[in-house]
């Protein structure tokens, strides 16, 4: 529904001055329109749209922003809580893991399932007369343990909790492995204490010499107990529930 065709008044005999004035007016209007158009475009692109927004729009935008901020703050709080929980949980798990590793290493050395090294002594028992019996070796093991030995190896056999020394003088058997003299015993522990324990009157050195053998003890800063034991899982015994 265009404006113009509604009242068509074709000028037929308009005076010249009137026509000039009209076209001037039209020109001014068009100038104004262009000016306003450019200004409006500039204004719209200049501000972010908030400047020309209405009050109710602004209030709604503000409400939206506030609600969003609340939501984000809640998110932040939740995430921080999770982060804290994960951090402490991670720390606890790490500590527990480190403790378990340490304990496992200690138990492995005790059980003889890992190679152990440290200060200790090397004890060599020679038995030219085949007089050293299993009880002498057993004595030696017990003496060394009493002196604080932490890992013992006789020949190629690691000494553990279930070690048995059997056989006859001259043909000793430890845990099913037969040994022959001289017996080489590697012990990890405090070297002076171990040597003293072996040398006490009525001790290992005495007993061996009485049986016709000889002992040689060397203190070392570093010895390696390299023989390993195979652990048999317990068939009957089970850990009892802890009551404390």
């Amino acid at each position, binding site marked *: 529904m265009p404006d113009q065709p509604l009242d068509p008044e*074709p000028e037929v005999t308009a005076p010249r001055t009137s026509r000039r004035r009209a076209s001037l007016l*039209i020109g001014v209007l068009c100038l104004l329109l262009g000016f306003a158009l450019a*200004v409006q475009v500039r204004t719209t692109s200049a501000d972010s749209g908030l400047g020309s927004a209405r009050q109710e729009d602004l209030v709604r935008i503000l409400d939206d922003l506030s609600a969003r901020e609340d939501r984000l703050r809640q998110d932040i709080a939740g995430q921080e809580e999770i982060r804290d929980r994960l951090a402490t949980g991670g720390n606890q798990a790490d500590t527990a893991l480190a403790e378990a590793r340490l304990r496992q290493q200690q138990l492995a050395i005790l059980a003889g399932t890992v190679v152990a090294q440290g200060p200790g002594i090397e004890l060599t028992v020679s038995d030219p007369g085949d007089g050293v019996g299993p009880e002498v070796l057993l004595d030696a093991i017990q003496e060394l343990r009493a002196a604080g030995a932490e890992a013992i190896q006789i020949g190629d056999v690691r000494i553990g909790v279930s070690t048995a020394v059997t056989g006859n003088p001259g043909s000793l058997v430890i845990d099913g492995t037969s040994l022959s003299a001289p017996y080489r015993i590697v012990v990890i522990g405090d070297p002076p204490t171990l040597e003293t324990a072996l040398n006490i009157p009525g001790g290992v050195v005495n007993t061996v010499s009485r049986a016709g053998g000889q002992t040689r003890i060397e203190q070392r800063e570093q010895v390696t107990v390299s023989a390993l034991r195979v652990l048999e899982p317990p068939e009957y015994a089970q850990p009892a529930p802890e009551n404390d």
Partner: protein
Amino acid sequence: MIPALALALGIVLGLILDPTVPLWLQPYLPIAVVAALDSVFGGVRARLDGIFDAKVFVVSFVSNVLVAALIVFLGDQLGVGAQLSTAVVVVLGIRIFGNAAAIRRHVFRA
């Protein structure tokens, strides 16, 4: 010819001067521009139809702008300014489309 030149000159002037729109005018300026555009399209169409009248054009131009601004002003006073602005823009847009279609038929004969 003169109106087109004046329009271009106005755009250039607006870009160069880059004045700040007064706050009270800001809601009405875009509506006024759209209304004026509608009048210009109507004028071009009338010109092509051969029934252009300068007086009608000027009066319709001014009254279009004033009425559009008045409607928006009223809407603001009644609390439905945004909706009425939309309504005005929609109506003017439809008119501009109609006029543009008529101009197109004149120019391209299609």
